[in-house]
């Protein structure tokens, strides 16, 4: 060792032994150095060189040696600091290895500041933008962390920002968190009136259908969360809110079905076939398109229909709250698909193919599941009297027309031509979701 060696960082290690906290000073100090940079450890602990040199060997750092130093060091527990310079101190020099140097630069001057007392995920995303693509070897390292090389490859396969993360995702996450509600407390359950058995059975059937479809809306995103690279964590975080929403919807829909005396209705094969064809979609963007743009988009019209015809405030409140959540899900689906379409010219055709494939699996399934048709008709009628039922039937037919028109609007909004939108809307599942 030469006293001429240029020291980049020096630390006061006092009389700390290696097993007594010394490494909590040495290791972070080395992290501050570039490979090849030299750390000076000023210590008055006897024989530290034997331990430090072994540790350096294990970690592939170079122990350059030691020399007496006039530097004063802090002695643990010394009450009178003025006595410290009388301690014999040794300066140990360590050259940082070029192995295991974390990738990326350490975040510096990262001071997120609150706006109106709030610190949003959107502000974080703005400060730490997502990369164009992500390395599966960085594992669960948060975006912005330095990552040691040599980590295992994770099974993430959604690695491309433009197919995974629309720019609006953090804002939608913020909105979702702020909009959470409590299906236990926030619904006026005690105000539910008693309805005629025929009407209540219809309501039980409608909510059975809603809960079944929301179960699929809970499971479908869950299949993609574990595939999303954590560099795009806001997408997984957003989807977790969407899943929490669906969990709450399942909860309140089943509670409503079971609160009026009728209980649950029938699960139809048409619904089951349709939801399986959705669950089996392996592509994230295709699934978002089928679930959120087409499925949940159509559900917005359905929930509005139920709310408009709800015979009581409890039923109306349940679907109204669910519809607010679903509107956010549709929004995410739209921005996701639109962002992906803008960066992938072949995606239009793939999405159309996905709709056609799904329609093919549903061939021969018939129209809207019969138990649901009947339930919605009686709900709209408000009773089982033939005159009311005739009106309810008209309302139901009108609902189907509205769903078609609004689907076309959403598809056009997502970037499809009018002709494409019409074709895709007509091919959409009769199960709505």
């Amino acid at each position, binding site marked *: 060792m030469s006293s001429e060696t240029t020291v980049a960082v020096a630390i006061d290690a006092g009389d700390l032994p290696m*097993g007594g906290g010394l490494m909590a000073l040495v290791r972070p100090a080395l992290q501050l150095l570039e490979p090849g940079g030299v750390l000076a450890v000023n210590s008055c602990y006897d024989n530290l060189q034997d331990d430090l040199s072994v*540790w350096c060997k294990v970690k592939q750092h170079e122990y350059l040696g030691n020399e007496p130093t006039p530097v004063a060091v802090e002695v643990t527990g010394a009450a009178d600091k003025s006595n410290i310079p009388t301690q014999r101190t040794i300066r140990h020099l360590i050259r940082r290895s070029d192995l295991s140097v974390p990738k990326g630069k350490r975040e510096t001057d990262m001071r997120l500041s609150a706006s109106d007392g709030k610190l949003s995920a959107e502000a974080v995303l703005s400060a730490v933008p997502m990369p164009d693509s992500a390395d599966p070897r960085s594992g669960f390292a948060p975006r912005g962390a330095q990552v040691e090389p040599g980590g295992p490859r994770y099974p993430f396969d959604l690695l491309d920002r433009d197919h995974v993360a629309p720019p609006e995702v953090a804002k939608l996450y913020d909105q979702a968190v702020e909009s959470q509600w409590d299906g236990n407390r926030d619904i006026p359950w005690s105000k539910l009136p008693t309805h005629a058995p025929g009407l209540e059975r219809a309501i039980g059937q409608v909510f059975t259908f809603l809960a079944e479809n929301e179960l699929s809306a809970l499971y479908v995103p869950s299949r993609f969360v574990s595939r999303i690279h954590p560099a795009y964590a806001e997408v997984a975080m957003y989807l977790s809110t969407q899943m929490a929403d669906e969990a709450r919807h399942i909860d309140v829909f089943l509670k409503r079905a079971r609160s009026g005396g009728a209980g649950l209705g029938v699960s139809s094969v048409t619904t089951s076939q349709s939801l399986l064809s959705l669950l089996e979609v392996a592509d994230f963007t295709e699934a978002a398109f089928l679930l959120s743009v087409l499925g949940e988009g159509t559900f917005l019209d359905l929930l509005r229909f139920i709310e408009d015809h709800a015979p009581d405030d409890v039923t109306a409140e349940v679907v109204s709250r669910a519809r607010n959540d679903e509107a956010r899900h549709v929004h995410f689906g739209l921005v996701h698909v639109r962002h992906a379409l803008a960066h992938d010219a072949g995606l239009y055709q793939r999405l159309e193919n996905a709709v056609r494939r799904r329609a093919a699996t549903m061939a021969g399934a018939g129209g809207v599941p019969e138990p649901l048709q009947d339930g919605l008709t009686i709900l709209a009628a408000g009773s089982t009297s033939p005159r009311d039922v005739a009106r309810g039937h008209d309302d139901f037919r009108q609902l189907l027309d509205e769903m078609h028109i609004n689907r076309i609007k959403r598809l056009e909004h997502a970037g499809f031509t009018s002709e494409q939108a019409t074709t895709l809307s007509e091919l959409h599942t009769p199960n709505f979701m």
Partner: protein
Amino acid sequence: MPTDSTILLGAVAYDPKVVAIWEGIRDYFNDAGAPFDFVLFSNYERQVKALLAGHVDIAWNTPLAHVRVQHHTKGGSLSLGMRDSDQDFHSRLIVRTDSGIAGPEDLAGKRLAVGSADSTQARILPLHFLKEAGADLTAVDLVRFDTDVGKHGDTGVSELHVLDALRNGDADAGTVGDLIWVMEQTAGHIDTSLLQSVWTSPPFDHCMFDALPDLDTGKIDRFTSALFAMTWDNPEHRRLLELEGLKQWMPPREEGYDSLRAAVADQGYAL
């Protein structure tokens, strides 16, 4: 000696991870164009016999097994490589801070915990070096931890027993390798107000790949080429290197075993 082109290596199964290590290295060697397989032994004595009998091409040996192979081949055996971490090992004398022991000369009349009878770093060499440093071992009460005999101290278990004995007050001083001492400290397992190192032995070297003098030169070339091509920055290699406790394979050197040869001769250790 195996006659096909496959390099057959012997290693001792001192830990379940040994299977993962050598299966990984086998796959790597085969992919690197060096056909390779391995057999596991339960102890180094059996492995050395198998090497000397030509049942395996190469043995991954502890220093004691290395010295034994050299003894039986009259110095003609081939040393093919070692880990960076095998070079410049030391033994330590760890004492209880309340023992009054400041160095080897203070050991007389004290209880000295030592590792397994065949542990180079925790028994054979520290006793050799302590004697050289002036300790009167005839006046020392040895507390022996003969665990995992046959594994030559690879498991590290006897060294942990030595440290436990010191913590529990069952010994006043103890000998361990410096790797265990430093790793136990950095892991936060040592109360430094209770235990401290007061003496460090001269350096010595540890494990070595040994082969008989007549090993096929093609096998030697293929083995060493593939071995030294492993790099820390390759994630697949790194996984194996980490398991085996090294960052870089090194060319062999012999001077690091001189002290062990002297120690086994002095202690009458049967080779």
